């Protein structure tokens, strides 16, 4: 029965589709489809129309994709389980491919549009930097993460104390119907591997908090004070988000560990395991819509500034990938999208991505 997978699909796809379709409305007002422009131009009629077209075409395409996916899942639900589990990844892949293609198309159109605008040709490229930027509260205190550490330590202690109560066979993998797909014999490894994962997550989120604090300042010369205020709130909100979502995710792992001692009803376990990640994703999407990239949706001014932001279009390949060998920054705020991305010319950035990839690949290989 594939009802659960359709529910999961809907709960993920609908907000995801809308965040893709409405992304141009969420970016900074100095960026349109990966091209830097003044706020005035962002709010002008031709650029508004482009955003609207993008949203409409996106919704149409993704809507069709979603319906095909639902149809395929209904069909396969009566057939073999393997087919069912393939459709979700296939449609996520198609979604990403479609959105990339669509974005690139509009990116090229926007580039052409910018060339026809008279104002941008003579505009000076002014960069504004606030020397006091990092004295604002950009990220939550690291001390909050002691709570996470306490939760992990508590889980370890509890599991050690109750180790004998754990049955000889532990379930490792479930499918969407709630049946056990894979189990293993109880050992210190299988029991405490979850804690190892928790510790890795804690380290990851500490690092995320650090990079929110230290990532490159991107202040708009047209209205520096407002830009800094928006940016500070933006960073702080995402810091709070990562604090809370990391706590919930670590909590989920502890919950799953508890499940080893006294396996609870599969429905309860499945619901919690699905609810928590779902909630985190929804929370992120809602936060994106309320805040905008760089805080662009926080207390918008009535009129957009006509000052051209610093022209670094040539540093943003395809409007998405930041490549600047002279820039010592490792993390910069995304130009098209919400959050941060790496400076692809920085070796440390590649190392970080590489390490994460290795961890992911090793985890997949281990579980095969």
């Amino acid at each position, binding site marked *: 029965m594939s009802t659960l997978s359709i529910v999961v699909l809907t709960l993920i796809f609908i907000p995801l589709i809308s965040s893709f379709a409405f992304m141009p409305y969420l970016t900074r007002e100095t960026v349109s489809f990966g091209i830097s422009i003044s706020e005035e131009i962002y709010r002008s009629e031709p650029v508004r129309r482009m955003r609207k077209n993008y949203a409409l075409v996106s919704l149409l395409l993704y809507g069709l994709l979603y319906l095909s996916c639902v149809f395929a899942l209904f069909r396969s639900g009566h057939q073999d389980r393997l087919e069912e589990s393939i459709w979700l990844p296939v449609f996520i892949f198609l979604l990403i491919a479609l959105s990339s293609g669509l974005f690139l198309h509009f990116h090229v159109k926007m580039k052409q549009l910018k060339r026809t605008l008279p104002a941008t040709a003579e505009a*000076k*490229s*002014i*960069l*504004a*930097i*606030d*020397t*006091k*930027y*990092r*004295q604002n509260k950009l990220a939550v205190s690291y001390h909050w993460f002691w709570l996470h550490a306490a939760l992990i330590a508590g889980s370890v202690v509890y599991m050690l104390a109750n180790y004998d109560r754990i049955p000889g066979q532990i379930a490792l993998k479930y499918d969407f119907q709630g049946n056990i797909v894979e189990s293993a014999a109880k050992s210190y490894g299988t029991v405490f591997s979850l804690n190892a994962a928790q510790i890795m997550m804690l380290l990851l989120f500490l690092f995320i908090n650090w990079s929110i604090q*230290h990532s*490159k*300042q991107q*202040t708009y*010369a047209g209205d*520096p*004070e407002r830009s800094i205020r928006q940016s500070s709130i933006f960073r702080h909100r995402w810091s709070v988000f990562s604090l809370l979502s990391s706590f919930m995710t670590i909590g989920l792992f502890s919950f799953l560990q508890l499940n080893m001692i006294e396996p609870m009803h599969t429905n309860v376990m499945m619901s919690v395991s699905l609810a928590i990640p779902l909630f985190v994703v929804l929370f992120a999407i809602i936060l994106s819509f309320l805040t905008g990239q760089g805080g662009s949706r926080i207390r918008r001014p009535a009129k957009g500034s006509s000052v051209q932001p*610093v*022209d*670094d279009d040539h540093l943003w390949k395809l409007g998405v990938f930041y490549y*600047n060998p*002279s*820039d*010592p*920054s490792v993390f910069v705020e995304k130009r098209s999208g919400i959050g941060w991305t790496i400076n692809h010319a920085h070796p440390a950035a590649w190392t970080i991505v590489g390490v994460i990839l290795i961890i992911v690949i090793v985890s997949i290989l281990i579980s095969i």
Partner: protein
Amino acid sequence: MIIHLDMQSEVPIYTQLEHQIVEGIAGGKLKPGELLPSVRQLASDVGINLHTVNKVYTRLKQEGYILVHRQRGVVVNPEGMPSATSEFLEKQAAELRPIIAEAILRGMSRQELTEIMERIYTEIALPTKEES
């Protein structure tokens, strides 16, 4: 303080940075003892090489305008600024010479030149530092 840099100017970035910081201290926007971003942080925010920022900070440190602590970071000199020593006056005269020469060449009068100086001085200087 907000630093403004013209990324496409003929004037190199490190010169602009230096001038902006000096002007900031002169005009009171940067107060004695105030924290400045570290070399790494400033280089990252502007998007330029560490060495460029290092060059700026080293020059400002040599003049005695800022202090660079390993642990505590970079601060505007809390003891106040060095006065106009004879060395400084010589250097300043040498820097002003080509500006004045070109002004004369272009037919500017003594008064026009003085007016410009007055205007800029007023724009930058702290009210308390005004000579009577």
